[in-house]
């Protein structure tokens, strides 16, 4: 019986593997291979895509909340962090976080990217309301939702630790 969706699943599988390789080169799911000569089953594809989503969320979480503790110092709430370094630090961190994501929208006032498999959204805003850059983290399960990047001259409030 002809499996008309086989090429679609194969393409999705290849894309998911490429994304996973980018996000987490050591991920054990990268060694999983579909049956030689045939496209992956939908169940196998679902498992792989779930692994990609988990890896993408873990990559962000491990960077902004290593060991479950937010980086930087506490802002207006436990969900908000403050880091020094201004735009340079914000851009560097965002460059790391956006690996494996898809561009969603971008202009001079913001960049929005989407994590794979509807894992959530991240934004970089060069100027928040206070004027300093900010990264927003809209990923369910990552309780840190925003990082403000102060200019060095502004100093920092009390630390998380």
């Amino acid at each position: 019986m002809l499996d008309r969706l086989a090429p679609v699943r194969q393409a999705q599988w290849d894309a998911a593997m490429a994304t996973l390789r980018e996000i987490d080169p050591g991920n054990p799911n990268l060694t999983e291979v579909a049956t030689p000569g045939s496209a992956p089953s939908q169940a196998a594809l679902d498992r792989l895509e779930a692994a990609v989503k988990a890896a993408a969320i873990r990559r962000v979480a491990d960077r902004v909340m290593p060991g479950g503790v937010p980086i930087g110092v506490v802002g207006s709430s436990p969900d908000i962090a403050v880091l020094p370094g201004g735009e340079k630090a914000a851009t560097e961190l965002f460059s790391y976080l956006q690996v494996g994501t898809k561009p969603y929208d971008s202009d001079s006032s913001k960049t929005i990217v989407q994590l794979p498999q509807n894992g959530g959204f991240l934004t970089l805003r060069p100027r928040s309301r206070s004027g300093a850059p900010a990264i927003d983290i809209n990923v369910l399960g990552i309780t840190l939702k925003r990082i403000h990047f102060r200019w060095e001259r502004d100093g920092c409030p009390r630390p998380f630790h």
Partner: protein
Amino acid sequence: MVALDRFINECLEESKVDYVGLWQIAQTTRERFGAYTTEDARELSLKVVRRLYEKGLRPGDYWGSDFNYWPDEGCQAALDRIEREWIEAGADPNLAEPICWFAPHPG
């Protein structure tokens, strides 16, 4: 109630330096207050929004540059609009489709 009061105060503090997104409120209802479905999140978020409105925050559209306040037709009108747009979306607001953000009353 103490936890909700604390969250309200956190939003008010954050509004002094940056806009507070409805997405932040929605996500917090799930992470801190046990909202499981988007209906739960909406119900709890609207309670938070009401309190924020009473404390002087107002909703508006924002995407990185200017903040455009919604016409201020009172708290209930704001709640109704948020509820309507949330139901239409069928999912929690997020950074891509935030419905609204909050900033201190312009006056």
